[in-house]
């Protein structure tokens, strides 16, 4: 081949000399040659660029942080919901108060009426459109819900859940994906009006735009306009270099053409909306309008007003130069320039644009603390997620994670802990005290709130999940439960001995438990011993039952812990976390229908397809009749026992069940309590386990009361299941009696454990047998 070429060239040289006409042909051929070389180099180069830009487009588009949502609030007539809690929920879900809630995401309050304009939202079980409705609240209950306009009464409506955390990609980009179909129209059209008016028609580069820009720049004598299309800008954003060399521009243009060849306009625009750099928050780059909207206005994109959209579009030109927090005047100028472009292109009317231009920037003073709002709870969620998902998937798959958190319960629980501990300082307790709190729904086991530190912003040691502490008397109800399960031997009115005792320990030492008041109380009923938390009586009872039984029962109630079966566990020498204690008491509060505590409801893909659901599962306990009787006994702890001060602290008239717990040398303070709706556990102590001067009732119970004062709740259900019933007995002798007899108290009994002998008073009335039976049975509690 090279030979032939040489020959040809030689021949040409000859002819050249002879015929000047051939000059043209020579140049033509040279041109072809050069073009060939150019193409030979360009094809691989373009292929390389093609590979780069498509990889970037395909890959980066989907690297999304996962979002963690609270539970959706159901609103319906009779719902237990105070106005303040509703407002807390609204704020947590990013609602703004307004006089007229004309837009989704706004609400108004007037007296006890709250008008809400709910946004449309894809819930874990289906999408719902936006809806405007009015909620009337009387006291702590919703009295009516009416749809607007029209005033049709609604049976059930729910708020979309608050977003409580994001799990970010490692490349430290924050992004809230917006969908082109759902993006505000003004954003889509406005962006084109300002940055690339010919976007719909050009193939990636816009020659007319370049010429227009060149002309404008020439006229102005400086660079006032850029000729880059949105596609070119997208390419530039992908590779984040801002050098303005010709080679760079050339590559960008090629890649823009390639992108346009591969993808349609809406895909490119959507990628642009989500990719464009719009700010920097610490280490995290703010990418895309969705995230910028949250970062600057703390509002989702769809709720921005025209002037806010204009500001963001204006910032495309230079996110730090026009940063509205740092350079408000400059940003305002740019925004108004954009607004006038909106008017010029007919996107806004002149008058509307003027009106918008007069408005303040409406940027929040500080961006919301990034990421997680409720560290301790999200910690629990991540722990449960980690059983199924790899960290990387959580960071990049944009999963939608629906949890059980109730923002109002969480806020109030944290306030009760932080505020409660500060108050304890004024009562002479140490300022270094720490605390944890867990709140769960009794029937569903859903964790509604979790506090792991007195400081809500500290994300370190999560005491609710990790602090293993001795639980003290909080264990005692289980000892009494075991006794009640032996219904032939024990009932709540059975007397046991509260007298000194000494036990040989495995290590040879002697253990002589004493009571809190250092007294022994002699023969006391089970009910008295439990409500007053007598140690000696409890240890004697426990020894009769057997230490292994207690260890087994703890496991049966849903807690697997490594427990040393020694008699001191009857007094709570068992280390458990607040979460584990909550699990045990959920079972008791739910009448023996254990539900594994859960923080997750469902996980979906970014597109709303369900990946996994965490359904409600019930695990019934044996001897639920004994659990029901125990429930009553625990209400007596509050009514007349160690938690007697509780009703006063809460200041509401409802039946609460609870148990205090204190450990040796006052190192730990526990309070466990529940109503019909919620069970909560509180722990207070020092992190290093030194004596803290705390008791169950002087510390943890106060924090617990601080929360339940704020939560609407209902009394513990004391209806007995099959296998247990109420009887009137004599408070002193424990004999069967009648309501009208002196000293009569009503007590529940497990079937077969009730007294058979009667009081003299009752015997006297037994003459009329028929009347007796009617009275006795007629007096049962419902």
């Amino acid at each position, binding site marked *: 081949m090279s030979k032939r070429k040489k020959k040809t060239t030689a021949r040409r040289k000859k002819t050249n000399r002879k015929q000047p006409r051939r000059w043209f042909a020579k140049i033509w051929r040279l041109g072809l040659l050069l073009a060939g070389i150019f193409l030979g180099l360009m094809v691989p180069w373009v292929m390389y660029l093609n590979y780069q830009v498509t990889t970037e487009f395909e890959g980066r588009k989907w690297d999304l942080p996962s979002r963690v949502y609270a539970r959706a609030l*159901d609103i319906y007539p009779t719902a237990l919901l105070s106005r303040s809690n509703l407002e807390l929920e609204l704020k947590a879900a990013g609602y703004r108060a307004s006089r007229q809630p004309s837009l989704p995401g706004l609400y108004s309050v007037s007296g006890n009426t709250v008008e809400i304009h709910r946004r449309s939202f894809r819930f874990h079980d289906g999408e719902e459109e936006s809806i405007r409705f009015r909620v009337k609240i009387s006291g702590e209950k919703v009295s009516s819900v009416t749809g607007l306009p029209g005033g049709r009464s609604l049976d*059930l409506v729910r708020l979309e859940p608050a977003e409580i955390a994001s799990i970010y990609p490692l490349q430290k980009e924050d992004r809230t994906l917006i969908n082109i179909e759902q993006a505000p129209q003004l954003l889509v059209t406005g962006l084109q009006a300002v940055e690339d008016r010919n976007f719909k028609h050009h193939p990636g580069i816009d020659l007319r735009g370049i010429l227009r820009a060149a002309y404008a720049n020439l006229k102005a004598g400086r660079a006032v306009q850029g000729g880059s299309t949105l596609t070119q800008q997208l390419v530039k954003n992908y590779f984040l270099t801002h050098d303005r060399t010709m080679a760079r521009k050339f590559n960008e243009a090629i890649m823009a053409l390639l992108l346009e060849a591969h993808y349609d306009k809406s895909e490119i625009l959507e990628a642009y909306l989500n990719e464009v750099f719009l700010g920097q928050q610490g280490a995290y780059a703010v990418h895309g309008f969705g995230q910028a909207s949250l970062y600057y206005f703390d509002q989702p994109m769809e709720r921005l007003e025209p002037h806010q959209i204009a500001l963001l579009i204006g910032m495309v030109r230079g996110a730090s130069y026009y940063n509205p927090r740092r350079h408000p005047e400059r940003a305002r100028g740019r925004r108004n320039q954009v607004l006038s472009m909106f008017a010029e292109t007919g996107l806004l009317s002149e008058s509307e644009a003027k009106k918008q231009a007069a408005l303040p920037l409406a940027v929040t003073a500080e961006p919301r603390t990034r990421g997680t709002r409720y560290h301790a709870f999200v910690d629990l969620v991540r722990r449960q997620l980690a059983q199924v998902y790899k960290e990387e998937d959580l960071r990049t798959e944009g999963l939608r994670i629906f949890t059980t958190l109730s923002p109002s319960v969480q806020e109030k629980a944290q306030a009760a802990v932080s505020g409660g501990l500060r108050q304890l300082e004024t009562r002479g307790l140490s300022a270094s005290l720490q605390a944890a709190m867990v709140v769960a*729904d*009794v*029937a569903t086991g859903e964790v509604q709130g979790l506090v792991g530190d007195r400081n809500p912003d500290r994300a370190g040691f999560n005491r609710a999940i990790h602090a293993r502490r001795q639980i003290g008397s909080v264990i005692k109800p289980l000892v009494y439960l075991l006794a009640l399960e032996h219904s032939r031997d024990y009932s709540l009115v059975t007397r046991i001995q509260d007298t000194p005792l000494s036990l040989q320990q495995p290590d040879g030492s002697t253990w002589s438990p004493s009571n809190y008041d250092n007294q022994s109380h002699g023969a006391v009923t089970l009910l008295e011993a439990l409500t007053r938390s007598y140690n000696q009586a409890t240890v004697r009872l426990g020894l009769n039952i057997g230490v292994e039984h207690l260890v087994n029962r703890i496991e049966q109630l849903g807690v697997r812990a490594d427990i040393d079966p020694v008699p001191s566990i009857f007094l709570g020498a068992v280390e458990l976390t607040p979460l584990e204690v909550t699990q045990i008491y959920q079972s008791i509060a739910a009448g023996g229908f254990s539900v594994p505590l859960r923080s997750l409801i469902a996980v979906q893909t970014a597109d709303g*397809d*369900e990946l*996994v659901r965490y359904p409600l599962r*019930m695990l019934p306990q044996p001897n639920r009749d004994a659990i029901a009787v125990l429930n009553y006994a625990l209400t007596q702890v509050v009514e007349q026992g160690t938690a007697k001060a509780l009703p006063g602290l809460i200041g509401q008239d409802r039946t609460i069940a609870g148990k205090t717990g204190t450990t040796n040398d006052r190192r730990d303070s526990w309070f466990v309590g529940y109503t019909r709706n919620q069970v909560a556990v509180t722990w207070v102590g020092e992190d290093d386990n030194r004596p803290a001067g705390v008791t169950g009732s002087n510390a943890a119970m106060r924090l617990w009361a601080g929360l339940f004062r704020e939560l609407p709740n209902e009394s513990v259900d004391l209806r007995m299941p099959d296998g247990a019933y109420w009887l009137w007995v004599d408070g002193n002798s424990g004999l069967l009696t009648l309501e009208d007899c002196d000293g009569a108290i009503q007590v529940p009994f497990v079937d077969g454990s009730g007294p058979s002998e009667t009081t003299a008073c009752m015997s006297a009335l037994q003459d009329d047998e028929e009347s007796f039976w009617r009275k006795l049975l007629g007096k049962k509690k419902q």
Partner: protein
Amino acid sequence: MARKSSKIYRWPSPFVVLLMTAFLGACATPPGPPTPQDGEVEARVREPARQDSEGIQVFPLQNPAVKELLADASAAEQTGDYGQAASYLERALRIQPRDPEILQSMAEVQLQMRDYGQALNFASRSYDIGPRVGEICSRNWRTISVSREHLGDHPGSVEAEKKAAVCMNTKPRGL
């Protein structure tokens, strides 16, 4: 644990494959071909309970929100979407955790999903806090009976069947 198929835009990542494996294994109701058990809930629980209870209906007053969710659940159940039905019932239970009707409906959905253990548990809970008389009581025991049978507890199943009959002619204890 129930799962539905997932649509992911990218080619399935190892993560999705992992998930599919993990959850298919735990899937409670693989949608299989109709078996003789289909229709069991209607034939062995609801219909006999309806017949038993002619004339003695004990229905607790129902919250309209719960009524709406029960209707939604029933509709979902009829289309065979038991997961969605369970989801509605769970929401109803959040509103009224002690409603025997919701608990019994959940028990029947669990029966449809052939999770006999859970069907038994929900029905027991419903009975514990329910009227213990009338139609619900009958459905409670019939569900317990069917569940026990599937769980291999034949004597227990027969006993429960007997209790269902008693729902109609015995006053609940203590009334």
